[in-house]
């Protein structure tokens, strides 16, 4: 924290002072982790008391499980990334823990059990969390330096495309409520888009690092904007096409918005050219409006956003292709009011389908109220802030680009999901990172946190002790 964003600047201090250096802040992380485990444990007890008038029998094992995962995470960070950002792990743990509580709370709903939307989701989510933590540990141990990822730029591109196209493979892809973003492997549904997000960020970062000068400098000025050359426009068009294809074939507005937004952010950071943002916004607007005009699934989402009450009425009249979810989510938020009903005392199960995944935010809104939901959003804001800070502190352009790409995508995802559930923008089929039920999301986001921690460790790590260099001595003498 202190001095991290300036440590690379030679005008402020010398490398020798840096060596005494930034504290590792590992004990801060440990202290925060205690809160991140204790708060969900209290929440869990609270749900049990509200629903069954007794402390839930699984309280101890749940607390120990979450504590164990957090402890392992902490020890691995302490060992392999001692200078990593101290806030991210506790924040992710807290969100993950609260998500588990909300999922368990919805598991208790007889209504959701009767339509097989919940019942045994919480133990599975705990398993996914463990898997996510395992991937996090693997990233910490095996990714010694994030710059090694740079080597896999083009493999990443191929990998990302592969992941994105997987749901379109006949027999493998699965259509759930209109969006084809899942694949079915055995009894597990996997959302490859969540993993593609990270892989794509690696590709963009590697590619843009190499091409940034060409993209930034070789341009013509036109009406006050710097227009890129045709051949430099190639990649942005490719990404745009891919986004549109996802939108058309997988009818997934959220993912395509997310990828395109992430690319525009990274492009802008790499080239420092505002014109790219103008281009990006124009192209996403053209793409979204174009596709929405002929894709009924997207149209229905837009209609539901514009008039959720009408959508509710149509759904109640048994008109096919309509859903009352949007209105139910709004009632859920409204019924929560300022302070909420308290854990376990709301009726967010009325949302029915995807109540514990895409719509889990409604449960938080209803039961923790405006106050609780704002606090929750601030937790997300803090993760994004730590990510951006890591990008600022990173010393290498690849690290900067990767960090801003990942945290920008994280922010966009939070906005798209929360905005969709709260009726600010049309609903999309994405899930709230860490909170929502879903293996892919939890596992991928733990990997994302792992990579960000690795970058921040590299950024905050004191530079190696300067060699006995007479020039350095001289500099030190000259400067006051």
């Amino acid at each position, binding site marked *: 924290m202190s001095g991290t964003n300036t440590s690379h600047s030679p005008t402020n201090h010398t490398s020798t002072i840096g060596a005494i250096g930034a504290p590792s802040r590992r004990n801060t992380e440990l202290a925060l982790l205690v809160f991140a485990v204790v708060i969900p444990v209290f929440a869990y007890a609270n749900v049990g008391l509200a629903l069954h008038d007794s402390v839930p029998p699984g309280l101890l094992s749940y607390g120990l499980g979450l504590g164990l995962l957090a402890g392992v995470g902490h020890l691995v960070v302490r060992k392999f990334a001692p200078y990593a950002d101290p806030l991210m792990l506790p924040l992710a743990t807290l969100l993950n823990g609260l998500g588990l509580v909300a999922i368990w709370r919805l598991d208790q709903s*007889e209504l959701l059990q009767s339509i097989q939307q919940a019942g045994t989701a919480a133990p599975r989510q705990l398993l996914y969390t463990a898997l996510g933590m395992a991937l996090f540990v693997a990233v910490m141990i095996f990714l010694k330096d994030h710059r090694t990822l740079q080597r896999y730029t083009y493999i990443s591109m191929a990998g990302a495309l592969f992941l994105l196209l997987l749901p379109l493979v006949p027999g493998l892809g699965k259509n759930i409520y209109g969006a084809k973003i899942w694949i079915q492997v055995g009894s597990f549904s996997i959302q490859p888009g969540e993993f593609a997000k990270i892989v794509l960020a690696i590709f963009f970062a590697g590619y843009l690092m190499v091409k940034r000068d060409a993209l930034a400098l070789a341009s013509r000025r036109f009406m006050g904007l710097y227009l890129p050359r045709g051949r430099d426009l190639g990649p942005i068009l490719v990404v745009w096409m891919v986004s549109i294809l996802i939108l058309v074939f997988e009818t997934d507005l959220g993912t395509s918005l997310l990828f395109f937004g992430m690319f525009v952010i990274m492009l802008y950071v790499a080239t420092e050219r505002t014109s790219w943002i103008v281009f990006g916004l124009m192209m996403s607007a053209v793409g979204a409006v174009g596709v929405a005009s002929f894709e009924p699934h997207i149209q229905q989402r837009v209609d539901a956003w514009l008039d959720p009450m009408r959508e509710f009425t149509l759904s109640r009249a048994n008109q096919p292709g309509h859903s009352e979810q949007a209105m139910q989510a709004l009632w859920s938020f*409204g*019924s929560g009011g300022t302070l909420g009903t308290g854990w376990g005392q709301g*009726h967010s199960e009325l949302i029915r389908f995807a109540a514990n995944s895409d719509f889990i935010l409604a449960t938080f809104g209803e039961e923790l109220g*405006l106050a609780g939901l704002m606090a929750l959003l601030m937790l997300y804001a803090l993760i994004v802030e730590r990510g951006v800070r890591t990008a600022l502190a990173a010393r290498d352009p690849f690290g900067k680009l990767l960090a801003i790409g990942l945290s920008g995508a994280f922010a966009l995802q939070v*906005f798209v999901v929360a905005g969709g559930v709260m009726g600010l923008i049309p609903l999309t089929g994405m899930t709230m990172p860490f909170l929502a039920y879903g293996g892919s999301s939890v596992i991928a986001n733990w990997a994302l946190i792992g990579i960000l921690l690795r970058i921040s460790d590299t950024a905050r790590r004191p530079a190696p002790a300067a060699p006995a260099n007479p020039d350095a001595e001289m500099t030190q003498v000259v400067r006051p």
Partner: protein
Amino acid sequence: MNKPLRRIAIFCGLLILTLLIRDNWIQYVQAEELRTDKNNRRVIIARYASPRGDIIVNGKPITGSAETSGSDFKFKRTYKDGPMWAPVTGYASQAFGASQIENLEDGILTGNDDRLFFRNTLDMLTGKKQQGGNVVTTLNAAAQKAAYNGLKRQGGKGSVVALDPSTGKILALASYPSYDPSSFAGNSTSKDGGAWNKLQKKNNPDDPMLNRALRETYPPGSTFKVVTAAAALEDGLYTSADAKTDSPDPWIMKGTTTKLPNEGNIPCENATLRVALQYSCNTVFGKIGSDLGNDKMLDMAKKFGFDEEQFTPVRANASVFSDKMNPSQTALSSIGQFNTAATPLQMAMVASAVANDGKLMKPYMVDELQSPGVDPIEKTDPEELSQPLSAENAQILQSMMETVVDKGTGSNAKIDGVKVGGKTGTAQHGVDNSENPYAWFISYAKDEDGSSPVAVAVVVEDDNAVRDDISGGGLAAPIARNVMEAVIKSKK
């Protein structure tokens, strides 16, 4: 690269800020509206989350609550003697919402009313479950039973309303055929939905869910002659019950060549008001209406409560006395035909105003709202609605109505040892009077001190009866007598 990074940071901050603003919008600004939206299932979940408070008659609840399972509604409403009390309680159904008192006093009955806020907060702190309060009604169980059983024995469609003339308290409010609100109080599609469907008018031509006492208007027929008589006395057209009136028989309606007929061979030529009311002379009262004119008749009808909805607090339809009629239409209206139409409540109000020496009290059926701990929250005070006629004229009219029962068409309403005043009515309706007439009877009973404990209006519509058999005196008066007797007995 740091300058664009900072800008992206601001952009991300704006995204979060937008979410926070939106959150405040839906969870603070719009929260109340969303929370209380009638389509928001939480509203009915809350309604049935705890046992509902009771609706009370004579200190005993006529409602109850039963715990249910297999639904997000915990408790179901039950009713004692449901069909008898349905016109009073209305229904509270998990599947079909609530009506009448169940709906109007829902806040008290569920315990969600703001006036219970302090108590609820206290309960929350002490860990007690929220409870519903009670609604104490003005009704009299014995009178209601007499009214409902009378209609039931009669077998045809009909209604009875009994009022306490000095306060406006509703003592009986019966409608027949009726329905049992228990039968569809739950939310099972087959059982409750089926029962509900069977009661709908399209499936049941008798329309059992219609609250005839408050929501059906009938031509009042000759019972309206009491209003016409009151108008004549108040205007000074005639000042005594026993002076001859200027009434030819047959009388040809002004502006027409049509004779207004009397029923049967009765002494109506220049009859006194007393005799005219006793024999129910159309010629006398038709001419009075025509002589007074539309405006004066309308004015008197309005003073009795016509042309205005009444809120008891359950809404009663407005009874009708028309405006801008020509003299012959006014004449017909003044004997309760043509456009004139009245709810049973309205005609009970007419009888009660006469019985209460000219003062019309606002009819009401909710006496008191109680908190769950039976502390009173709100008590309804009797309220004077208007004074259609002076005390002297009211007493003249009383003596006329008492003659109707002593010697005239209303003799079936006589009660031993009690002075009873009344008026029969047989109202024709349908094109060319082709349908069966309605049998009306309005009356009041009087204590020895001259005050009146009860006024009643009874209407019976009987599709099966032979037309000649239907007359207010024959079908409706015995029911009125039983209701009045029940009230008098319960007072002792």
